[in-house]
């Protein structure tokens, strides 16, 4: 597997996807660090994984489901809003969102 070398554009792209506002200096700082790490972990490309299924969970459980019964919440409206003072009449308030969501 041929891993393309990490470019400045890659870092910029990824930062945007992750909603991190990076300065040019930061991008230049992170680029070699990330490249080095990716090169190291890229060694995994050499491992033979034919016929192996991926593991995303080690708990080994299935069908962990709960009853459809309402339980009182541990927080009321005050508790819900307590993390910030950018609120208004019980709502969280942000500057007007002008863009449509990228999905429903």
């Amino acid at each position, binding site marked *: 597997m041929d891993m393309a070398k990490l470019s400045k554009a890659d870092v910029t792209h990824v930062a945007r996807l992750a909603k991190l506002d990076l300065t040019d200096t930061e991008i230049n700082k992170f680029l070699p660090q990330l490249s080095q790490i990716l090169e190291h972990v890229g060694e995994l490309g050499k491992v033979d994984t034919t016929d192996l299924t991926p593991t*995303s*969970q080690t708990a080994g459980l299935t069908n962990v489901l709960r009853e459809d019964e309402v339980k009182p919440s541990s927080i*009321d409206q005050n508790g819900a*809003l307590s993390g910030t003072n950018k609120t208004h009449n019980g709502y969280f308030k942000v*500057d007007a*969102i002008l863009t*449509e969501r990228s999905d429903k």
Partner: protein
Amino acid sequence: MKNTLIPIIGLEVHIELATKTKLFCTCSADHFSKKPNTQVCPICMGLPGALPYTNYEAVISTIKFGLAMGSTINLFSKFDRKHYFYPDLPKSYQISQYDLPFCVGGNFAGKRIRRVHLEEDTGKLVHETIDGVKSSLIDFNRSSVPLMEMVTEPDFHDIESIISFLKDVQLIVRYLGISNADMEKGSMRLEANISLANSEQVIANKLPNYRVELKNINSFKFLEKAASVEIKRQTEALEKGEELVQETRGYNEVKQSTFSQRSKADAHDYRYFPEADLPPIELSELIIKNLQLTIPELPEQKRVRFEKEYELSKDFANILVSDLDRANYFEEALRQAQSKFGQGATLSARTIADLMINRKLDQEFPEPAGLVKKIIELTSVAYSSNEEVENAVKSVLIENEKAVSDYQTGNGNVIGFLIGMTQKKLQGKGNPQIVREKLLEGIQK
């Protein structure tokens, strides 16, 4: 020769499940018109440290719906995280299903279903100007309410068939009792992917190389207007030789036209990966079979049965079936009428149906018993009981001694008068034969 352009339309339908609790927490899912952020907890608010825990009922409802759509139920399915940033998405990822949804494939009302999966809803955004500043307000009451998402194949070629399909889907979920699928209340939402193909493409079974996504369709009227406007726009463009691109468009009601909504390419990199906090779902053929058995009689079956068993016309059957409450009312009224008076089902059935549909008497009488009573009045098919006749006869004989003695002295015609007096007492409900019998009995004594 002009190349006729045929609309190729596929649908993405979201249906809010009417479970008591949300999908991943035990907050009430009944969020409509509640005070903001009063039905929330650390989980649906995406507070640090919170973890999801799946609602059994939501899973079962989705599987039942898939079965009703003729889908194959995956024996192994899981949840995945779908990442994007938006203020009403508290974790900045939505727990949804990616490559192993509960239901795959299917066929309903002649249209192919691609998949049905389960995911959590987002919070709600309201836009307001506060102290002169344009702001957006966020309410998380709706966050994590269970949503079923159904994707169809692009099998629709006109708007009427879409509307009829959706109405059928609405009916199915109401019959299953899993949702009300109310477009006005937002418990059914629609997106349509519209493109046009020319007859060559259609014959070659080739899909057009672009698709326009029409979003936020919140009523059938909106669908009609927006979709026809968009089809017209695409038709004109293609006829002019313009190329059409993959994009999302909204509908401007004032201008009565669709407009492009910017959607950057990278906005769709959702970086799906399996949700590690939720163990996957493993089903067996036996479980699925048992679930199939719990599915009640569905609209199509009921239609057929109503036509056959009650000899109702297609129209009558349709009207009753299209509202489960009315269909149930109808059968209950019939049951009551039959138990009381043992009349032939056929006659009563058609009568009851007629009274409900043409005279809307089920609206006047919220309880079937009331309607049955009215039928008696109108059709006079229900006679007074024997005891009632005997009591009436008794009173009439006491009150009309002269007539009785006239009859006894040979004036046979007086019986008519006495029958009339008896019927009056019975409000005309006396069975003529029994009234005559009882009178003669009474006179003889």
